[in-house]
């Protein structure tokens, strides 16, 4: 459950410094939603992402995830906007009382393409990067250790707490709590299950914070790292390049809109 999206591997993409991939995803998303030429800006980053994923051998997995995550949204988008789109004028088809409109369909298509593109570019990051490495890279880049802790420790805490839910349920069932049955019974079971989970987690907070303290978590000394994830000058240049490109696109689009080209 914890590392759900990460796919282990040793491709060039996997070996890239995580921040490079992060910057790619963020720049891509900025262009998808704010770039000039709606359709081109929406499609291009997605295509590039898929090509990159393909060269790293994890395109199929990413595509499967995209289909899995977006199918419900896409289907509903087409139905809702196709039939009920407020901007519908051009009628394509009639289905009983329902009318399929071209404007709505186009709008839905644009949203779906954008979402596919967005997801593809973010999956480029998360399927090829172990969450631990991403967090360590953020730390190397200067993110404070406190924030790093907040991002990192939940990932490792998750499976333990998920297991605890089963224990709590068993313990309360042993005290006669019915967790199935009618709605009222199920509502009644909510607090006896939620509260021990929360309380037991909160009781642990003190010990966990003490354990951090005695290991120098808030020590005034500058921190070091046992290992460093390798970064290269080439990648640094590449990152700045991507940022510059994204900013240029956004500024251009902004300028265009201001001068009324749309």
């Amino acid at each position: 459950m914890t590392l759900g999206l990460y796919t282990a591997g040793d491709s060039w993409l996997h070996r890239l410094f995580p921040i490079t991939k992060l910057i790619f995803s963020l720049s891509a998303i900025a262009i998808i939603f704010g770039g000039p030429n709606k359709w081109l800006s929406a499609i291009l980053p997605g295509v590039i992402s898929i090509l990159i994923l393909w060269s790293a051998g994890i395109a199929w997995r990413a595509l499967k995830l995209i289909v899995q995550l977006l199918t419900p949204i896409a289907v509903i988008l087409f139905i809702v906007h196709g039939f009920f789109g407020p901007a519908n004028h051009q009628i394509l088809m009639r289905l009983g009382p329902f009318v399929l409109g071209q404007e709505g369909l186009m709008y839905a298509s644009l949203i779906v393409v954008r979402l596919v593109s967005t997801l593809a570019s973010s999956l480029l990051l998360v399927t090829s990067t172990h969450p631990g490495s991403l967090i360590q890279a953020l730390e190397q880049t200067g993110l404070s250790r406190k924030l790093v802790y907040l991002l990192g420790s939940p990932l490792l805490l998750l499976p333990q707490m998920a297991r605890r839910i089963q224990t709590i349920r068993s313990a309360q069932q042993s005290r006669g709590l019915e967790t199935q049955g009618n709605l009222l019974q199920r509502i009644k079971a909510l607090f006896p299950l939620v509260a021990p989970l929360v309380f037991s987690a909160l009781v642990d907070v003190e010990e966990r914070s003490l354990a951090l303290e005695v290991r120098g978590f808030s020590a005034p000394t500058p921190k070091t790292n046992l290992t460093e994830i390798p970064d290269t000058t080439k990648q640094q240049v590449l990152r700045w390049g991507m940022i510059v490109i994204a900013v240029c696109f956004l500024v251009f689009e902004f300028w265009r809109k201001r001068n009324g080209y749309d």
Partner: protein
Amino acid sequence: MSLKEQLKKDFSTFTLALIAVAIVLNIVIGQIVSLLKLPIFLDSIGTVLVALVAGPWAGGLTGLLTNLIWGLITDPVAAAFAPVAMIIGIAAGLCAKYGLFKKWWGVIISGVIITVALSIIAIPIRVYMFGGITGSGADFITAYLLATGKDLFSAVIITVITDNLLDKIVTAFLAWFIVKGLPKRFISRTPRANAVLE
């Protein structure tokens, strides 16, 4: 107290450990809800709890990071709603700060305020990024409203509010009960919790 000092006080190691735990609570509590097949999410209970005992900033951070982590491990789409989750924490923290979490009716009002606050952020994200659709059951409300001739924006407003109101009120109540049941030793580490306890 300067803002910097207040932030330092709000983010002691204890609070950090608390936030980390609350993030996990947000994520795993959904398992209980689906176990019981209840029509709510409860995915911001940790956020509201932190907001009550450690203040609006800590609460906001809990929400924000919850969705970013979600994005990292299960569904990148969740990350898009990180600002929404953040507002839930800030709103709950402010409600507590101004004494709304003292009486049961104040808790209901807080639930409403939280819902309104989150809607302000959630609606533009839903409309501009997702065309008003999120792939959940709530989309039927949007579809119905559009079919009756409402424009997309108002349809989404109504959807978001109906979808969240019950959940946020229940969340606020559960968090309130839990704070009232916290041990003294815990309360003594989180002085803000006193704003909740009479």
